[in-house]
């Protein structure tokens, strides 16, 4: 198996410096990443206990991608997401309670309990309910970009997808359309090396996804997706270009999934050494050590963040388990066809 060495080069680049950033901003980034990790871990155990039905697709290990990108956009900018969408939703500003309620199928959930894990979203917070079809969000993001451009709203559409989406026909169609019309769309490929269980070098001759951009005539960039500030900086630049009419941009964020594709996947295909190497580049631990080096953030600050997040999540579970469930009368509401 190839080492995909040219792809890992940017991972060995030194950490983006925290010096020019405000303490509160950095703590907010850290808090959001910890929130995503703890949310996903708690949900995993709810599933294992049999308390929560269905399967789930989780994003432990990919927190910096969601948080770094969403920190670079406004509430009225829109994101599209995938079946692995809990992290994108939390990063975009959806509440813990509306998401936990949704996972329990409650009518107080962000999609009134009708979407569940794979369709988290809230239009008021700039997130189209997540699209579980691989690459399904790409043409949709191009459409949103076209609307923003024609209406001159100044908004940007950010489209999250995985490496598995790159070889889909919808990728070409959506990306090409965004390119020819210079649409304000940031295409964010979270390249975690595996489309379900298939490693990218088995399905791509050129495994550097950002190279695809130049064939469409716009800018692409590969970024260390486990360095939250590197992601934030790349996304900030991409969003600025889009707002100035120089879009679209393709960002490839190199990252790694710490869990199986879904809860039913034991993930035997991730080789031990590869796994170990990526676990050492854990985005939350890296962010924590960068913050601790500053001098104005102590270990106790980070521990307090972890504790608060856990308390909030536990509280949301208690409420979600007794929240109202939809009834038969709700069957035909919110239905368009």
């Amino acid at each position, binding site marked *: 198996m190839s080492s995909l060495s040219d792809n890992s080069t940017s991972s060995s680049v030194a950490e983006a410096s925290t010096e020019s950033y405000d303490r509160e901003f950095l703590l907010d980034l850290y808090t959001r990443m910890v929130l995503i990790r703890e949310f996903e871990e708690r949900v*995993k*155990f709810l*599933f*294992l*206990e*049999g308390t929560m*039905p*269905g*399967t789930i697709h989780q994003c432990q290990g990919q927190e910096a991608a969601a948080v770094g990108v969403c920190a670079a956009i406004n509430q009225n900018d829109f994101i599209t997401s995938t079946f692995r969408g809990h992290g994108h939703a939390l990063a975009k500003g959806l509440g813990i309670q509306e998401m936990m309620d949704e996972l329990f199928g409650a009518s107080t959930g962000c999609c009134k309990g009708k979407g569940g894990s794979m369709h988290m979203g809230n239009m008021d917070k700039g997130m189209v309910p997540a699209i579980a079809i691989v690459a399904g969000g790409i043409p949709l993001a191009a459409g949103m970009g076209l609307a923003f451009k024609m209406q001159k709203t100044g908004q940007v559409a950010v489209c999250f997808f995985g490496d598995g989406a790159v070889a889909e026909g919808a990728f070409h169609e959506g990306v090409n359309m965004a390119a020819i019309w210079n649409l304000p769309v940031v295409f964010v490929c979270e390249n975690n090396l595996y489309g379900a269980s298939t490693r990218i070098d088995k399905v791509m001759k050129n495994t550097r996804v950002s190279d695809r951009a130049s064939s469409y005539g716009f800018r692409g960039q590969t970024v260390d997706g486990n360095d939250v500030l590197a992601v934030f900086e790349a996304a900030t630049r991409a969003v600025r270009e889009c707002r100035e009419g120089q879009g679209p941009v393709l960002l490839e964020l190199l990252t790694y999934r710490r869990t199986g594709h879904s*809860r*039913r*996947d*034991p993930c*035997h295909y991730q080789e031990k050494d590869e796994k170990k190497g990526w676990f050492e580049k854990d985005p939350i631990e890296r962010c924590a050590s960068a913050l601790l080096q500053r001098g104005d953030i102590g270990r106790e600050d980070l521990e307090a963040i972890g504790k608060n997040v856990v308390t909030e999540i536990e509280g949301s579970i208690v409420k979600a388990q007794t929240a109202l469930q939809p009834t038969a009368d709700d069957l035909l509401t919110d239905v368009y066809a």
Partner: protein
Amino acid sequence: MRSKLRMPDLSTTGEDVTIVKCLAEVGQAIKRGDSIIEIETDKAVMEVECAMSGTLVEYLAKPGEKVALGAFFAVLEVPTS
């Protein structure tokens, strides 16, 4: 307090799963997240993480036996907080 562990819904078609190996000893302390059994689903052999922390009292099924999804497969003594 005694708590029973249910078999998580890890198969892809709702099929029963087969216990392959018990990974803990009776009387052993187990943390949430530790692997407690190895199972074979309709698709793969995998380890199952324990959903709570406690001391293993007994396994309710032996290697080779089939367990329905949602059925109890082990008993833990869980400290009351």
